[in-house]
């Protein structure tokens, strides 16, 4: 699903965000990426989404090499990923339903299919009573759940969530992590970054990446398929 060989990432200003690393993440795995601020968690997710290219080595996501000159293919590859951004990136002025349907619009679904799927997943994140509400008037936690519904509604092969526990109290943070992990199945991997090391230490995961200063230690917990 994701493979890296001697891959590194250096930003234009010279910051070496990720020192050369190897990595392999398989289908159907839950991956926690933890580490202090500035350790390179978001940088790794940027590589996965093809927002940055490796400075050296190779990085492949869903069989698509992440490198310059593959813009079209990378754009296509992204349709199989459900991203949940730290700042959500919902479309202001649009309803919850519109926001969730947005990620399916260019994938060839019919209007009815899109509506059915969107309603189903909005229900699953517990927002069915706010279907037609404008996202501008939702609370932070509600926006997050819209973002989650938008990411998972198109049944991606990879769900990527950056800092989903950021602004939440312990109880809600646990709930969101559990919700995200519930979308992991044989076909779908879930990758989550978080500061909250103490929270995820108790949770089952296949892979833990503990980041520090652009390097990481990889621990395998559950074997593949087990959860």
């Amino acid at each position, binding site marked *: 699903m994701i493979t890296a060989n001697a891959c590194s990432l250096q930003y234009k200003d010279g910051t070496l965000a990720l020192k050369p690393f190897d990595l392999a993440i398989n289908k159907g795995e839950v991956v926690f990426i933890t580490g202090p601020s500035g350790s390179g968690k978001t940088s790794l997710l940027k590589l996965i*989404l093809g*927002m940055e290219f490796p400075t050296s080595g190779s990085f492949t996501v869903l069989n698509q090499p992440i490198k310059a000159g593959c813009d079209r293919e990378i*754009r*296509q*590859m*992204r*349709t*199989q*990923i459900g*991203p949940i*951004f730290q700042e959500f*990136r919902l*479309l202001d*002025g649009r309803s919850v339903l*519109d926001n969730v349907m*947005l*990620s399916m*619009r*260019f994938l*060839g*679904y*019919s*209007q009815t299919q*899109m509506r059915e799927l969107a309603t189903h997943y909005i229900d699953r994140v517990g927002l069915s009573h706010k279907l037609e509400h404008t996202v501008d008037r939702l609370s932070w936690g509600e926006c997050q759940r819209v973002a989650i519904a938008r990411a998972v509604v198109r049944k991606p092969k990879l769900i990527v969530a950056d800092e989903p526990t950021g602004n939440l109290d312990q109880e809600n943070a646990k709930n969101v992590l559990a919700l995200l992990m519930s979308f992991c199945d044989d076909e779908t991997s879930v990758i989550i970054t978080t500061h909250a090391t103490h929270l995820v230490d108790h949770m089952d995961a296949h892979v833990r990446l503990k980041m520090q200063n652009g390097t990481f230690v990889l621990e395998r917990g559950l074997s593949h398929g087990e959860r």
Partner: protein
Amino acid sequence: MAKGSSNIGYYFSEVKTIFKLGKLSVLLSFISLAMIFFIALLTISGWWYSQNLSEALKDEAEISAYMRPDLNTYSTEALMEAIHEIDGVVSVVEVSAETAYDQMSEVLGPEASILAQFDENPFEAYLAIGIELDQRVGILEKLSELEQIDYIRDNQSVLEKIDRITKVVGIIGLMATLAVVVATFIVTSHIIREGVHMHKDQINTLKLLGAPDRFIQTPFIMEGILLTVLASCLSLLAFVLFSTQLGRGTSDLLNFLPQLDHPRMIMTISSGTIIIATVLGLGASLFGLKMVKER
């Protein structure tokens, strides 16, 4: 795949938010586009009119030759034959004094009553010589050599003036069209660029979700086409109102001139304008989008 059809509603709601966000600058561009189109419509229709007028007058190009009063019927016929021989003469018709009187009263219409003021018919008999306009000078020369002719009345220099005016108006029309093309292009592509700029975050989000460029760009292209087409429709409306008003005002005044085929002109100009506006809107928005991409 129901890709296109299921998104029509989405595209239109996107266009609506693009317009809403752009508010004042979209409105101002819309108004300037409509005014540009209006001015172009005026010059082009002016060109059309003078073109038609001069064509129509050319068909009726005539020289009037007045015969010496002592000429008898026999020599009149000989003279007519001689004139017919001249190169470029299409027809020679004798117009009697009575016919000349009738023609004038027709031209004058209700004003014809002033003719009754005369005790005698003030008109003389003459020969109406239909000519090919470009041979006019040669014909006039030949006619002046014929001694049976007393004098010649030639109002064709007016025609030449009209011809020249037509050419000038034609050039102005061409420049106006060029100005419309350039100005529409600049205004529209600028407004598209501005729209893209204001929607930068949204466009980035869509890219991260994997949306293809065509999906992202469609609302902006629709915006450009809508802008130019609606502006051209507004200018057409103003133009039709204006020109029918003008037509009504001048038709009494100019009723001796050949009548212009007004509905046909409106139809041709309207469809032409809308087609041009659509093409321009499409071209300019694609251009605007390309400019954004390259930066």
